[in-house]
């Protein structure tokens, strides 16, 4: 706020409109996809498939959608024995990951199965009718337990010394010097690295949004991160980071995250392999829904590509969200439900009392909606205040047909929400409190003094954008 008002360099809510970074990533990714296409043509060098190699490959394979409980239990056992082998053999096991994507696929599938198993178990408990499966779930209460999943992820991170390696890289030192016996091996390094992103996801699924953000302390999002080479990992990271920011009321930071990845996806669309691209289409839609929520709560200028796509996909909903008031509430709920992660509860459900098992999505949504309801009059307040430079509070209350005391609360709420933590260049959780509104006001008794920041034309920005379009 102070900077905003002292005529110093004003803080723009999205100060990094430059797409240089995305462009570099795109070029890098393109090069890599082409390189791998070349590899595919070569004969596989080794044809012998021993047992462990096929287990490694199996761990990265999705479980059949219709798999029964038995298959889910045995899949869990397979993961346990594989991770046990990798983590607890005498010294590091001498294996090369079958492919560049393998480590990500394993962690991704491991967490996906944990997530869907927990959701399934909770649903069976809520319905309370399938006696046979309830019995099986009771007997196998430790299967897919939260502690064991966390244990695997933390152990992989520790074994690989990946945090130490990443920190060495930040200081421009050789990561191998601190990697230890395990971390120098590709298998451990990759598993450790993607386990960090796996943890981000698990914390978010459990509703621990600040711990989720803290998990990424060692990874520098804005540099060419390792995960950027695996599209699905890149995508997943930004979705969960963006979502966690939204849940900690840092809407500007959330928008920055979603915008970055959506711009990136739209530019790499043409040379994506179709299978990989299909899997992210749904998340893509979800992130547009989340951007709609965030931009309604925190009006800001979006990248042109995002803006156009958002209007196409969620144009009507966005208008209602931006108007605020009680009519916007069902739309916030609808978009949140469609776009949130499939939240889970980490403990065994209460099979004896089906009615006690509440869907965690309802729980997190209800808390989120508390804040939405508190701030739902902000758009109304702003739209009226924009019309005046001074205004009598009682008169305005008359226009709005509310009690003056009610309007005083609305004014205070709107003013308080105009300050938001914004990421600077440190870890994701750190930020500085900045003013994010172009409208400011102060009260003298019942007299409201209003000032609106005038935005000058951004000629240079316009010129550069069009120039790059002409040459591209």
């Amino acid at each position: 706020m102070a900077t905003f008002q002292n005529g110093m360099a004003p803080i723009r809510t999205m100060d990094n409109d430059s797409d240089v970074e995305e462009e570099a990533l795109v070029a890098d990714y393109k090069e890599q996809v082409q390189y791998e296409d070349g590899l595919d043509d070569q004969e596989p060098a080794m044809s012998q498939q021993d047992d462990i190699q096929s287990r490694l490959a199996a761990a990265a394979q999705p479980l059949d959608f219709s798999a029964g409980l038995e298959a889910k239990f045995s899949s869990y056992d397979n993961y346990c024995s594989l991770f046990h082998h990798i983590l607890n053999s005498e010294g590091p096991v001498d294996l090369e990951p079958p492919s560049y994507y393998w480590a990500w696929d394993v962690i991704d599938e491991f967490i996906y199965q944990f997530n869907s198993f927990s959701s399934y178990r909770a649903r069976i408990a809520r319905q309370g009718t399938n006696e046979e499966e309830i019995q099986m779930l009771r007997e196998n209460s430790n299967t897919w337990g939260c502690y064991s999943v966390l244990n695997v992820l933390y152990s992989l991170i520790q074994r690989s010394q990946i945090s130490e390696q990443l920190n060495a890289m930040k200081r421009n030192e050789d990561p191998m010097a601190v990697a230890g016996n395990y971390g120098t091996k590709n298998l451990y390094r990759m598993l450790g690295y993607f386990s960090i992103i796996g943890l981000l996801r698990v914390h978010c699924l459990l509703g621990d949004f600040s711990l989720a953000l803290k998990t990424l302390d060692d990874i520098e999002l804005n540099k060419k991160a390792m995960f950027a080479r695996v599209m699905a990992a890149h995508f997943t990271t930004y979705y969960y980071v963006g979502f966690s920011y939204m849940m900690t009321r840092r809407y500007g930071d959330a928008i920055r995250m979603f915008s970055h990845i959506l711009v990136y996806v739209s530019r790499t669309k043409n040379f994506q392999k179709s299978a990989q691209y299909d899997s992210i289409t749904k998340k893509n839609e979800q992130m547009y829904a989340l951007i709609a929520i965030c931009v309604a709560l925190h009006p800001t200028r979006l990248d042109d590509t995002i803006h156009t796509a958002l209007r196409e996909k969620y144009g009507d909903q966005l208008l209602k969200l931006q108007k605020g008031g009680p009519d916007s509430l069902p739309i916030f709920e609808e978009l949140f439900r469609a776009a949130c992660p499939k939240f889970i509860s980490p403990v065994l459900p209460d099979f004896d009392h089906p009615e006690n098992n509440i869907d965690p999505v309802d729980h997190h949504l209800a808390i989120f909606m508390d804040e939405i309801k508190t701030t739902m009059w902000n758009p109304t307040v702003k739209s009226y205040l924009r019309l005046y430079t001074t205004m009598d509070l009682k008169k305005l209350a008359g226009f709005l047909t509310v009690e003056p005391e009610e309007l005083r609360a609305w004014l205070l709420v709107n003013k308080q929400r105009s300050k938001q933590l914004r990421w600077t260049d440190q870890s994701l959780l750190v930020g500085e409190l900045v003013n994010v509104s172009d409208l400011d006001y102060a009260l003298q008794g019942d007299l409201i003094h209003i000032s609106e920041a005038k935005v000058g034309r951004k000629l240079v920005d316009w010129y550069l954008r069009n120039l790059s379009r002409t040459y591209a």
Partner: protein
Amino acid sequence: MNGANGEDPSERPAEIRSIINGLERYNPEAAGVLEAYLSQQCEEKFCDCNANRALLKLYQLNPDRIKDEAITNILVKSMTQFPSPQFDLALHLLSPSQTSPAAKSDLSDAIAKLRVLNLQLEGAQYARFWATLESDDIYADLTTDIAGFEDMIRVRIAQLISQSYREVDVSVLENWLGLDDEDDTKKFAVETCGWKVADGLVQIPKNAENEAKKTEIREDVNIDMFARVIKRSWEETA
């Protein structure tokens, strides 16, 4: 985040720091240490929401460890940080069955009551907050462990008022601060806040927040923005 909103206070001892930053945060035995630290926060009037969430996380993973009183104390402590996401972040870590209105337990009742209070503070309905607090004896029970609860809320409200107001009616202020009469309100304004009172109006000194000065956002131009254009033109002529 910084100490100002109770996220990472300077009072946090090294022992707690090592628990919440390491794997010890998953050890059920750490709950005892974190509970003792919570009591210390309640007595010594500071707030460490980050450490308290580590305790809630342990409860989330080990429901048999849950102490109802610790949960409600954490909620009351995080409430004092309004307006902030702290209360909500704590709620997210509770089990859905504890926060559901359908659940009939002392804990879920208490949580529901505290949620109402918090919503009033977040929604700047300060007069209503004090009325709610008076309306039921359960609130006195829930806040009894938190030393100086009412004073902390009162000071925070005053701070927030000073960010929006240059002058405020004594009667409005009296309701918002939950004080019983005009004299107490004037006394609080003058002695605690350092404001001036004249003719039923409380005058709040100018600060960066309550001025509402006109500004113009101008374009910020630097040479880096032209880097790509220059690079391209160089490449084309070369």
